[in-house]
């Protein structure tokens, strides 16, 4: 009873936040909506008896990744999207078709799984607890954990290279090129500050 209340409450919240994520033009509002989705999903994981994943979801997604995104939004001081100028109209068609196909597929999955012969849902309460995750991670998933280590190391290197400021001579070239291309002198000052 409580489970289903929690589930439907947060499922609704998640979907509402997801729609708001797509709907809002302001990236910061989108980010806040996404945080809403992430936290709702964390609560839903609790109903699936996966407290560890729920905690990690909040810790990594909401607490690290999305903070980084919000940080970048604030750092770049992004405004609302400009009105559509040169958007290719066929993209909307593609988006619509893709959405419909995926939605149909969702119904199909629901139908297929709903109709499948009921197998008793396993209620092994230890699965999902920290102990089982830890044991799995150091036995069955030892190699993936090692690969993730390499992956994270590499992405640190990559992120540092990309986000590092340009050195001065290169910087000048970039500014001049861009100004020439844009032919807008009024943005010049802003540009130099931003860089």
């Amino acid at each position, binding site marked *: 009873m409580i489970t289903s209340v929690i589930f439907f409450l947060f499922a609704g919240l998640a979907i509402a936040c997801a729609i708001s994520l797509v709907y809002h033009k302001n990236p910061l509002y989108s980010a806040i909506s996404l945080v809403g989705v992430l936290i709702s999903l964390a609560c839903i994981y609790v109903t699936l008896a996966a407290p560890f994943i729920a905690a990690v979801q909040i810790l990594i997604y909401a607490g690290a990744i999305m903070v980084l995104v919000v940080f970048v939004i604030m750092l770049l001081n992004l405004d609302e999207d400009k009105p559509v100028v040169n958007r290719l109209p066929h993209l909307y068609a593609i988006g619509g078709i893709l959405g419909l196909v995926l939605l149909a597929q969702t119904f199909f999955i629901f139908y*297929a799984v709903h109709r499948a012969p009921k197998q008793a849902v396993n209620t092994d309460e230890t699965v999902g607890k920290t102990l089982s995750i*830890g*044991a799995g991670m150091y*036995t069955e998933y030892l*190699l993936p954990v090692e*690969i993730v280590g390499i*992956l994270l190391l*590499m992405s640190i*290197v990559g992120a540092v290279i990309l986000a590092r400021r*340009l050195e001065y001579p290169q910087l000048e070239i970039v500014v001049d090129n861009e100004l020439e291309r844009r032919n807008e002198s009024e943005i010049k000052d802003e540009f130099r500050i931003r860089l």
Partner: protein
Amino acid sequence: MNTVFLADLVNPNTSLSAILPEMIVAIAGTIVMLYDSFAPKQRVVTGAISLVGLLISAFVLYTMWGNADIPANAWGGMIANDNLRLSFSFVALFVSAVTILISTVWTERENVPVGEYHSLLMFATVGMLFMASGNDMVILFLGLETLSIATYVMAGLRKSDLRSNESAMKYFILGSFSTGFLLYGMALIYGATGSTNITEIALAVANPNFPALLLIGAAMLVIGFGFKAATVPFHVWTPDVYEGAPTPITGFMAAGPKAAAFASFMRVFVLGFPLVAGATASVALHETWVTALTVMAMLTMTVGNIAAIVQNNVKRMLAYSSIAHAGYALVGFIGAGVAATADKRDAAIASVAFYMLTYAVTNLGAFAIVTLLAQKNDRRTEFEDYNGIGFRSPVLSFALSLFMLSLLGLPLTAGFMGKVLVFRPALEAGNSLLTILVVVAVVNTAISAYYYLRLVVVMFFRERTTEWLAPRISLPLAAALLITISGVFYFGIFSDRIIERFSQSPPRAVVKAEK
């Protein structure tokens, strides 16, 4: 039993010998990174360390071919040790090594963070190796992501150039988008079969828990892998990304990640979704994916070739050509899928690996020359820039012509043998659909002659309008050209030696993964 944490910890089979090639490359990458942090911008040293790492890894890989000691259930059945893994790993190592040689020109000319570049390339190689060796979807996923993330960064390495930024951004967004589909596919397959291990999935497809999810999951996987392998209709990112990325990286992206994507693609579909006679779910799945991929292969070849004709930029032309070649490779892939016996299947897999090798050797050679001719900032990549250079830089233009002919598939070159071998399993299947597919492929080869020969014509029979400074060929680049040119002839003439090794699986006793 570990008493500290009161948990029954079964010690996993941590057989290091099973992942030795991957480990060597990863260690070499880490050494490069550490060395660079203490002595920055030593491009000769870091390049040499990387090359040595790749060579040692290749040697270890070579010894693994006949080695039966590697347990089949290494790392809980997560690592496979068959001809698919070994041959594609070899292709990956080859591509990386040649890329390092080619990129010397570029790292010398421009102010790139070279130590980081080399270590990223090494980590990308680790990703490719795991994509070839993973026998569990989680390894395939992580290998793919390691490769992709490294490639995103490498595409954006020339930070002051807007084209490079743009290429990295498009690649990143579309790449992660496709990863989403790939993961959804993996999740649904896991749901349908109850496992992420390819061997176990192959056993479970005969009687899956949710047959419908299996089909949807497979479709999602096609989208995900199709993006990475740049097959139509998931190819839209390719031309832009290939054009904008630094030229040596483009060469790498066209050869390496594509081969790795094919390795994973084939691992999941050919080995994971086999035809189990009499099992409805399995038959339906197999029929569906073979038909879908056949259509995709036809589209890929045709769209790639037709779009390549109208290009005026050499890098874009090569990008579309790489799409077309993905189509040809798919023919062999489908051949492996419909193969009647395990031996034939292994031979078909070997032919795809061989095709990727021939494509890599030719393509890298072409990109070596494009890199050299592009000059500083990668500016000169239009067809016009190649006008009339034929007899002023004869070595370069003859080599480039050779590579074009090999891409086209002229006899005696690697490209010809690659095509022949990759079409053969599809013809042998005796299936009318596959015969049509091969016919389409042959027609496409004829179409492709137009744009490959156009470059040759431009080089030799057009007048130069601007002044021409013949670029100096440095030693590493000369080595790369030597390797690729001799590779084109060697693979073209002695293809049977390679294919024999590629189709040879190390003997294995039990396949069932230990859980």
